[in-house]
């Protein structure tokens, strides 16, 4: 990890994004375990560097499309804890008025075009956002986050090819966390780098260390600049790790079955993007210890405020069932 050529405030900004995601997700995990959240919850813990590094390279006008594991993307793009948390509780004060839930958070005001529960469902939409940027001569870029598993859907291949042939400003960010549900990526594909697939579509395919938020930022920034300059799409494969369950509550659900060996799991957990960045920021005296602590305290407090607000937010009125149907 290094920050040569990178302004210090960018490092602090990235660190803040990583920490915000971590503290939010830890609380979501706790709430889910206490049975306070309905539906399914897929946590982003251990993968924060990817969303933080990529989104730090974007402007507010740039857009992102997210996945079932999407909380981190919303936060990294500047999402509001209160409206997110209320959405996870299914409350009226949520981003989607309680109609979307964990897998469908969106904030169109900050260019977060929606989380999608269908694996691979976001890539074509991101191509469309790139198409509209090109059509309107905007210098906006479109980013799509998706998993290693999603790279095996037809939509991945069609989207890369379409974006390539139309030279669209789309950045495909594959979060290779080594698993799709309970299946290791190495079992679902016979290549070691998903980035290699870019060759088949005539676009750059880059591998980046998904644990190193600063590296992700650098790689993303280069892809963003290329896209803005009319150079077309890039595929970035961020090598990262799923530190815990596919979905929360999985241990009970699997009834004692396991699918990860302990050494692999321990190795994955040891590669902690927050710890890495925290150590770097401390050792390089980018922020003094007191400020780091204060930042953490502030973020933790705002997560708690969001939980309190979500609890107080009313359940949606039944009449809301029929609202927001037609434009």
């Amino acid at each position: 990890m290094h920050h040569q050529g990178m302004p210090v405030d960018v490092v602090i900004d990235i660190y803040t994004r990583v920490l915000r995601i971590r503290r939010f997700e830890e609380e979501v995990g706790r709430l889910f375990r206490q049975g306070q959240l309905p539906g399914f919850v897929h946590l982003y813990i251990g993968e924060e560097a990817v969303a933080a590094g990529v989104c730090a390279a974007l402007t507010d006008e740039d857009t992102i499309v997210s996945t079932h594991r999407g909380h981190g993307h919303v936060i990294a793009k500047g999402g509001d804890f209160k409206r997110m948390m209320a959405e996870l509780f299914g409350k009226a004060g949520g981003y989607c008025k309680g109609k979307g839930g964990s897998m469908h958070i969106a904030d169109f005001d900050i260019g977060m075009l929606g989380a999608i529960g269908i694996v691979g469902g976001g890539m074509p939409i991101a191509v469309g956002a790139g198409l509209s940027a090109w059509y309107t001569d905007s210098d906006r870029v479109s980013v799509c986050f998706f998993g290693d598993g999603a790279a095996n859907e037809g939509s991945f291949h069609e989207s890369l090819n379409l974006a390539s042939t139309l030279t669209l400003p789309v950045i495909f960010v594959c979060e290779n966390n080594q698993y799709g549900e309970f299946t290791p990526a190495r079992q679902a594909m016979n290549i070691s780098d998903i980035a290699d697939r870019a060759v088949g579509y005539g676009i750059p395919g880059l591998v980046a260390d998904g644990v190193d938020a600063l590296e992700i930022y650098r790689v993303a920034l280069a892809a963003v600049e290329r896209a803005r300059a009319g150079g077309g799409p890039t595929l970035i494969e961020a090598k990262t790790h799923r530190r815990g369950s596919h979905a929360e509550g999985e241990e009970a659900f699997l009834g004692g079955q396991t699918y990860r060996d302990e050494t692999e799991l321990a190795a994955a957990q040891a590669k902690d993007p927050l710890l890495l960045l925290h150590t770097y920021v401390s050792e390089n005296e980018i922020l003094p210890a007191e400020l780091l602590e204060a930042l953490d305290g502030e973020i933790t407090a705002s997560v708690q405020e969001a939980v309190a607000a979500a609890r107080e937010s009313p359940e949606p009125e039944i009449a809301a069932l029929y609202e927001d149907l037609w434009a």
Partner: protein
Amino acid sequence: MPRKTYVAAIQEALAEEMRRDPSVFLIGEDVRIGVFPSTRGLYAEFGDKRVIDTPISELAVAGAGIGAAITGLRPIVDLMFGTFLYLAFDQIANQAGAMRYMYGGQTKASLVFMVQNGAGSSAGHHHSQAVHQFFMNMPQIKVILPSSPYDGKGLLKSAIRDDNPVLFLHSLSLGGKRSEVPTEEYLIPIGLADVKRAGSDVTICAAGPAVHTALAAAKTLASAGVDAEVIDLRSLSPWDKGAVLESVAKTGRFVAVDESFPTCSAASEWAATVAEEAFHQLKAPVQRVTNKDVPMPFSPVLEKAALPSADDVIAAVQRTLS
């Protein structure tokens, strides 16, 4: 007779059919570990070749099932959630459903597609839609939506032995439900309804989880002196028109209950058929009780309100009586 859960009954059907016929195999995402517990334990018994985990590639997996079927095997393609069938629509609608007819009877696509159908777990729109109505609309695809462990087992075994493509829909909301399941082998023919409750005042027709809603309504109605007959269709395509018409001939009133979007729902088909073929026996207009005409919301409160309730069924029955 032992009482078993819905999940256990489906698991038994799969295991028994795989033991009986070596050409039967299971393919899908994480079927070995079992995203849904009904496929658990099969890998330990049948091994690599008979229980195949795939990448997340619904279109290719569905198509591979079809290709294997027309070359002599009997695949069970597990595509997890009903909404994931949308990704495989081409292979199911254009290929599986049409190929025997299109190729002049030269081939048959003897395979089962298996998914969870419908709502009830607050999973949001992408994981909570009922899809049965789309496939009822396609010629040459059989569609099964059982409401009990007993029916689930008997119908899944028939589906696996059927020479046509069959869509077997199970319901997460029924997973823990128990019913008596005999130890001896049995099959339930596809296309045969089951009268769950005999009655003389009104016919309530349903399938899958909606059967339980209909039965709850019938119970309340009984205490108000209304004797409802509840028919569990079990199969949606083909469906037991005869049983429904026979019941309507007796009751003169018809309420269709269906957990799906209202337009072109299963209920629409049943209601149209009754209106068309039993018009002169009807004492009141036919009624449909379906989901509200909205996407599936995440909030448990809204999700519940979006689905047909026993109260909705009672209100519909009362409309036929007034």
